[in-house]
């Protein structure tokens, strides 16, 4: 876990107190461990690990009580139990029996810790006693997984939706990837194939001999019912007269398009092999006509009609923007470029709103049925991800963006979609429903993550919405072990109503989902935090602050806002939050910036904010709308560690001076005799300093006597390989050197502490100047201090 050393980062701000960070103050140590332990066990990171006991105090803390929750965090040590959870019998509670419940073993009764309902144990628990407790009552099982035995276990469904308006080379690569993927699927999984270009073809897989497909016009918006009729899916129901034979027919009908892999893999392999490029001629100066909108509509309609509420993954492969029909993003005239941020700001993007609306509707339909949609977009130009992002964002699908299907980036990423866990099961789950139950003092405000609201109103739903709110249940159609939701809470306890002594706020997360082995499972995580009086125990509360989690949580709020607000407004809001936080927790003398200090538990937070402000999640400059959408998509679903990397990339330095070490993300780290490895999550940059580059060019690494140089060159490659092999999506791998054009990836990320403006003013021993007018972290901090201590602010 190379990233855990984040905490070792040295902030310029806290430089004087370097030692403090390393010194393990008891509190810190406690909380650090506590946080780590909680994350490992429950997949939960709270912004505050002590909760202020009243609404007023909570508001004053600036950062809301909130958490990052990874519902399906991998727990190799947690075997699922083979029975179903015991629920509170109160109709509007239904909380699950958990270790925090009070149990009367003699009466065989347990008290719900949310509604205080006293529930008898079910008959199967007759043998319960202090020494014979079910797992869910043991403290180490604050997170526990149940397997639901009832009901059918429908197979997984993979529906490939393939754009055929590709270059021959791309198409070939894509076909190969798809053929390869067949071997990765479980044999009983159902697969389907839809191809599209000017037309949309739904391929029938069951037939021998002739390859059949149903064709839809690419310009016509069809309702789900129409699609099902046209595919002949409703026929059996309509014309079936006898009750019995109908069912098999039904199945057969739907199976024409979705067949078990083991039965059709030969067939499908051939079919994929014979896929032709869209044959319709593309006149000079035109884009190929690509009916992505209708293709998706057909895919969604097909699944809707055949397998509602069954885990299914629609995998959309596109090589360009939709150019016709509903969901069209750009016209087919090449002289009209696809919309840029500039166009959007000028309200010049003709198709934007309509297309977005169309895809949103599609995403919602899909989400209702529990199907998730992946987008694999490989093209040099934009492909309309901005409009289509909701497809994945609302359904929990992946978005992968690359330059070509014929790159290892795509190929390996795609392969990794089908990666398996220690049990040999796919790292994916479907149709997840996350329900949050809170004790009375807390209510849930909302969620930011790849989900949709299920509109479940209830007593634990706050009126104050943050993210997707107004509900206590969300649907996460596609979910994997790293999928992480940000949940925001509100303390509703009134200031004058005392929290019961020793009371704890309790939150229960109930995640029902379809495991990739088709079992239905329920994972229940119950956590509790102590209440603290903000007035008397502010120090405790401060030290319970999880600045990493908070940074990510606040960043998600920012990104969420950025979707609907202008960029500058979001930045201003972020700045104000930061200043308020500093004012609240900083130690300073009024109007004396130099006196400003932050405690250890907050010391990194401003630095995160500095990098966040510069990140592509909030800055659209130099990014296309598609890229922004892509970055944001990943940002709101990755776990804390990955999110932090995205906010503040990590930088390693390799040299002859010692072992590889993490260095400051600062221009001063760019030295001639170093090799740098930067990981921004999306990119992996290996940068050879000037001297190193010259040596390499001179070929020293080939000489036996410079074996050590060779080793040095190899070291970052090995580390990069390690990252590449685990990261999803696979990052763009860049090998560059001093003066290389690709070095811009590095230069744009590092803190511009040395620029053409101050090159000789600051230290001179090291570093490379960055040609930018961006403020450096130093300047940022100076301003922050000034504003924080200002009495007028």
């Amino acid at each position: 876990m190379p990233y855990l050393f984040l905490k070792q980062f040295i902030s310029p701000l806290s430089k004087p107190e370097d030692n403090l960070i390393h010194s393990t103050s008891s509190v810190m140590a406690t909380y650090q461990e506590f946080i780590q332990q909680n994350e490992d066990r429950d997949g939960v990171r709270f912004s505050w690990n002590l909760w202020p006991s009243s609404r007023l105090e909570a508001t004053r803390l600036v950062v809301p009580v909130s958490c990052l929750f990874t519902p399906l965090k991998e727990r190799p040590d947690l075997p699922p139990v083979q029975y179903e959870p015991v629920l509170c019998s109160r109709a509007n509670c239904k909380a699950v029996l958990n270790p925090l419940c009070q149990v009367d073993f003699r009466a065989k009764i347990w008290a719900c810790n949310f509604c205080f309902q006293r529930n008898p144990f079910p008959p199967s628990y007759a043998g319960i006693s202090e020494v014979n407790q079910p797992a869910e009552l043991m403290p180490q099982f604050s997170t526990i997984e149940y397997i639901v035995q009832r009901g059918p276990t429908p197979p997984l469904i993979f529906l490939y939706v393939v754009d055929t308006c590709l270059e021959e080379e791309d198409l070939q690569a894509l076909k190969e990837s798809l053929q390869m993927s067949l071997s990765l699927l479980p044999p009983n999984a159902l697969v389907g194939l839809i191809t599209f270009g000017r037309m949309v073809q739904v391929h029938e897989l069951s037939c021998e001999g002739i390859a059949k497909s149903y064709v839809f016009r690419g310009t016509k918006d069809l309702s789900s019912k129409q699609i099902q009729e046209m595919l002949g899916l409703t026929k059996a129901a309509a014309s079936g007269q006898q009750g019995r034979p109908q069912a098999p027919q039904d199945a057969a009908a739907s199976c024409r398009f979705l067949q078990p892999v083991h039965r059709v893999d030969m067939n499908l392999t051939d079919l994929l092999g014979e896929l032709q490029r869209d044959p319709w001629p593309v006149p000079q100066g035109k884009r190929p006509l690509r009916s992505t909108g209708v293709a998706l509509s057909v895919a969604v309609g097909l699944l809707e009609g055949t397998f509602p509420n069954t885990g299914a993954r629609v995998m959309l492969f596109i090589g360009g923007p939709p150019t016709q029909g509903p969901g069209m993003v750009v016209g087919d005239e090449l002289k009209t470029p696809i919309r840029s941020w500039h166009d959007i700001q000028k309200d010049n993007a003709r198709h934007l709103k309509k297309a977005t609306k169309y895809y949103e509707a599609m995403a919602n339909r899909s989400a209702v049925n529990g199907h998730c949609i992946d987008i694999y977009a490989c093209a040099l130009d934009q492909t309309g991800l901005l409009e289509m992002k909701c497809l994945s964002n609302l359904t929990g699908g992946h978005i992968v963006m690359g330059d070509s299907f014929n790159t290892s980036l795509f190929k390996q990423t795609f392969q990794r979609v089908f990666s398996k866990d220690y049990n040999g099961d796919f790292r994916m789950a479907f149709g997840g429903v996350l329900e949050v139950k809170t004790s009375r003092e807390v209510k849930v405000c909302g969620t930011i993550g790849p989900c949709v609201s299920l509109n479940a109103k209830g007593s634990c739903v706050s009126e104050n919405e943050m993210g997707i709110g107004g509900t206590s249940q969300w649907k996460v159609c596609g979910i994997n072990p790293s999928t992480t939701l940000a949940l925001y809470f509100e303390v509703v306890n009134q200031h004058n109503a005392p929290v019961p002594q020793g009371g704890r706020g309790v939150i229960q997360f109930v995640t029902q989902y379809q495991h990739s082995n088709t079992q239905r499972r329920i994972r229940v995580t119950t956590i509790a935090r102590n209440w603290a009086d903000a007035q008397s125990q502010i120090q405790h509360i401060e030290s319970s602050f999880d600045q990493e989690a908070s940074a990510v949580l606040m960043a998600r709020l920012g990104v969420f806002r950025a979707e609907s607000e202008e960029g500058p407004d979001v930045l201003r809001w972020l700045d104000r939050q930061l200043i308020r936080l500093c004012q609240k927790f900083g130690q300073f003398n009024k109007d004396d910036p130099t006196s400003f200090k932050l405690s250890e538990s907050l010391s990194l937070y401003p630095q995160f904010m500095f990098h966040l402000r510069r990140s592509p999640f909030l800055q659209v400059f130099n990014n296309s709308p598609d890229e922004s959408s892509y970055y944001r998509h990943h940002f709101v679903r990755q776990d804390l560690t990955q999110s932090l990397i995205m906010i503040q990339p990590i930088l390693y330095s390799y040299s002859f001076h010692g072992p590889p070490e993490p260095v400051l993300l600062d221009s001063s780290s760019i030295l001639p005799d170093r090799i740098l490895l930067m990981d921004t999550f999306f990119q992996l940059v290996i940068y050879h300093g000037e001297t190193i580059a010259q040596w390499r060019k001179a070929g020293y690494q080939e000489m036996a006597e410079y074996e050590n140089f060779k080793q040095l060159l190899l070291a970052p490659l090995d580390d990069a390989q390690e990252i590449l092999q685990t990261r999803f999506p696979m990052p763009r791998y860049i090998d560059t050197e001093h003066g290389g054009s690709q070095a811009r990836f590095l230069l744009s990320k590092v803190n511009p502490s040395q620029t053409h403006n101050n090159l000789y003013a600051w230290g001179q021993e090291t570093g490379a100047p960055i040609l930018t007018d961006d403020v450096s972290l130093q300047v940022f901090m100076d301003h922050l201090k000034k504003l924080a201590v200002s009495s007028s602010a």
Partner: protein
Amino acid sequence: MNVNQHTPMASPYGQPQPGYGQPGYAPLDGGYPAPYAPYNGPSSAYQPGAPPQGYSPFTNFPSKAVVANPVSDLSSPLDLGPARGPPTSGTPPVSAPQPYNQYSQGDMQNGPPPLTQAPPRPAASQLYNQGAVNLSGPQPSYPQNYGPQPSMQQVTSQMTGMQITSGAPTPTGPGYAPPRSSQHPASTAYSAAPPPSYTQAPPPASPAQTQPPPPSGPAASQQYYGGPPPPSQQPFNSSLPPTSQRQFPSPGLPPSSSQQTFPPSSYSGPVSPPSQAPAHPVSQPQQPFPPTQPPFSSAPPPVSQPAFAPGPPPPTQGSFPPRAPPPSSQPGSFPPPGPPPTSMPSGQYPGPMPPQQQPPPSQPHPYQSGPPPIRTQMPPTSMAQSNHLPPGSQGPPGPPGPMQQPPSQPGMQGGYPPQQNGAFGQGRGPQPGYAGPYPGQPNYGAPAPAPAPGPAAQKRLDPDAIPSPIQVIEDDRAKCTEPFTTGVRGQVPPLVTTNFQAKDQGNASPRFVRCTAYNVPCTADMAKQSQVPLAAVIKPLATLPPDETPPYLVDHGEAGPVRCNRCKAYMCPYMQFIEGGRRFQCGFCSCVTEVPPHYFQHLDHTGKRVDCYDRPELSLGSYEFVATVDYCKNNKIPQPPAFIFLIDVSYNAVKSGMVNIVCQELKTLLDYLPRENPEMDSVVRVGFVTYNKVLHFYNVKASLAQPQMLVVSDVSDMFVPLLDGFLVNVNESRLVIESLLDQIPEMFADTRETETVFGPVIQAGLEALKAADCSGKLFVFHTSLPIAEAPGKLKNREDKKLVGTDKEKSLFQPQVGFYNTLAKECVAQGCCVDLFLFPNQYVDVATLGVVPVSTGGSIYKYTYFQAQSDTERFLNDLRRDVQKLVGFDAVMRVRTSTGIRATDFFGSFFMSNTTDVELAGLDCDKAITVEFKHDDKLSEETGALMQCAVLYTSCSGQRRLRVHNMAVNCCSQLADLYRNCETDTIINFFSKYAFRGLLNNPTKAVRDTLINQCAQILACYRKNCASPSSAGQLILPECMKLLPVYLNCVLKSDVLMPGADVSLDDRAYLRQLISGMDVTESHIFFYPRLLPLTKLESGSLPLAVRDSEERLSKGGVYLLETGLHLFLWVGASVQQELLLNIFGTQSFSQIDPSLTSLPVLDNPFSQRLRDIIESFRAQRSRYMKLMVVKQEDKAELIFRHFLVEDKSASGGASYVDFLCHMHKEIRQLLS
């Protein structure tokens, strides 16, 4: 009937007799009498003789006489009278009165004899009819007639022919005009003749009269006949057939005309001759004609002979002996009229006539001898004038006649012979051949007499006496022995039933263009008065027989065809080069256009371009230009066309076996796609679609291992799901296509889908062609009413209750407007649709057919299709349909010379404006009927020209222009119009006109309109062209004598008069089918061919019989062909030998009525019969399924439906009844 009979009775009697009583004539007009006299003489002679003879010897005769009377009255008298009457001008009236006068006179003069024989006279009058017949072909025809007559029909036909001929003769006259030139002299001779005739006349008259008295004489004459006929016949046969036929074949026509003319001339001999003669040739223009005549003169004679040889001779031979007398008697009557003139003009006649007449007993002779005499005379005359054909032909016959007659009237001959000879020679030639024409001539004389007597005599119309289609067909065949050359304007081509060779000499061959009239009235008033439709049936891409040269392809390179600047007519033989060849004047609009430099050529001394005969467009009536890019859609050279097969795979289609059959067949059929160069592969690409309520397209790209099926369910908004791989070259994709065709039946073997769509199917094909940017043809194989939810969805609206009501028309209209719109789009793209229907119930052909009909496609319908019995028919149709040459994306434009204008078009096409006929597809079987109207006066000098230009894309993808030019004469005399028209074409026009009228009018109104128009046509003739006669006579123009019978067939067709078992679909199907028929097909469709099969000789077909149950013999086997069906009718008491030969069974009861093909038996009879059936099938554009009908079997009902001369089960009138009805109508109009 009554009327006819009565009237005829009265007038005929009077007339004939009087007429016969040449005296009357003589008194009246020197000239006339004379001609008449001679004729009468013979006729009278006949009559007298005939009655007795006829009666006694020939049972038929009497009957004929009886029947004939009416008929003869109808035709001959009428015709003769009118036709000649008018021409003769002076004389006719005379003649008219003459009849009466004659009667009286006759009574007076002949009276005595007649009186004595008064009763016989009536018979004689019948004889007259006969006489009329004689007239028509008295001399030659008689013998012939006799031959043929053995069958009642023949006689009647002759009779009719005669009568008609009377009319016809005149018309033919013009044709003959040329010959007449010689005749002119003849005419002069005629004039001269008249006198002789007069002189002769008396004799004849007297003979006639005398004849009667000497009934024995007749007998003698009969004997004579017996004697003479054989010899004459033999000679004829031998001599005539060979010589005449050979030499005369083509002339046949002209001769007939000439004959006719001659007759007239002869008739008028004295007075009228000239007038008539002129009329015929150009009646008045005789003089001008003379020049023309010369060339013709030679021809005519031959013609006449040939005519004789073919038609008459055989009949005469066969039937002659028996019936000869009767006919003779009738002919006699004719001859009298005819002969007189003829005789008059030609010494021959006189010669013969006299003999005949003189020898009263010879009356029969006259007929018989009449011909002989003619012959005899002929020989001399012909000899005298030209030894050519006439002599030969006549020679033989002549001998007998002459032998007999000459002696009698040597003087006559001597005097007349020269001139008349010439005339006669021709005239006779024709007459014999053209029993009809001649009769006409004779009619002149005869008309009056014949009719009167006949009708009077009998009370009931004898079916044998009314004009017989068979006879007309046979006569035409007989006279057509030489190639028909198109060089002369205004010639009536041989009938469609005749095998002839056409030679393009500047006008389009009749295989491409047939007109209703070859003499167009000069003024609109005339046209309106006559009511004869002016129309042309154009079959632009007709297939020519192997011995005729297809149109030459002319390539003018990039400059394209040379055209008139103003009217844009294409370069053609009617363009006149002036100013040394630097400019040309358009024959259509008279505009002068510069000759483009590259096209310049010097003129020779006659003003013709030197290269005239090197360039098809300057010397031929039909040719093709290679079109330049300017003539292409969007100015782009067209892509090769594509064929798309769209196959219904719903439950019914699969179950009936259709799908399987189509797929199996296509595998081999695809190797026979149309191509222009047989050695090259066809460039036509193919595509496949199957459908039920969704459509399945197939990707059969060569690179695929397996075909791919693309299902389009979105039928509401059809589109083509693929581009590449849908339309492929057969050779490249053969394996994939075969695999596909193998799999289609399997794939849908278990289908349970019963609903189908139709509109989207065509849309799909259309879109595919659009996408490929080419024109093409869709082959749609469809089974059921399209009730699935889709554009063009239909409801079942078959409602028998509406039949016969004013709302009936709505059933012929499309149910929804969708298909009209679709058709328009199809036409715009050049997408032709052929529809193969396999319905088990109502499918609404009226609506489904809209697109095929509008796009120049065809509809094939196989009701209750069963793989076992219908496969052969379907496959043959399919093969032919796929293989036949077809042009795409065609536009046809008909340009005409000033004064006339194409106003209406009928056929399978679409018109978006009033001039351009747009055809998405145009195949070799499709004909378009064009109606013309006057918009100004026409001049007789320039005639009326028309040019039909068809711009199309050939099946190899070449853009071409096919041009057909046609010039017809203009006439200022109605008689010329009536003389030069073609009933078959008129019927073609009428049927199309009426069937289209069904869309907007109640059926009854349509029928009434038809009847009215027909009545008006005939009434106009009667009023203006026929010699005055009793109103009770029905007089038919020679050329139109079959109009009533054919019209009756049209009226009785399922479309206009449905039987109870005829479905709405069948009617709509036939209605649409007929809209694209050419004359050949419409003829056989309306008047099926019925062949007795008792004896089969190799090389020739048995003589057809009339479509009436009366003609069927219980002991016989008959083959009936309608163009759509083929029936083999087996009489209940059929000879066992026949059964063995045909079916290989012993007894009638063992015949399997479900046979669809005859067993292959190794005997000559079976072999020959099967050959005949095969040859019939090969002649038709649609394969005819053979049905074996056993007498008294249930299936006989169907068969009887096609016996069109009988009353039909659905209430259609019999021929006889209808004729009477027509007569009544005409009389009403006249009064």
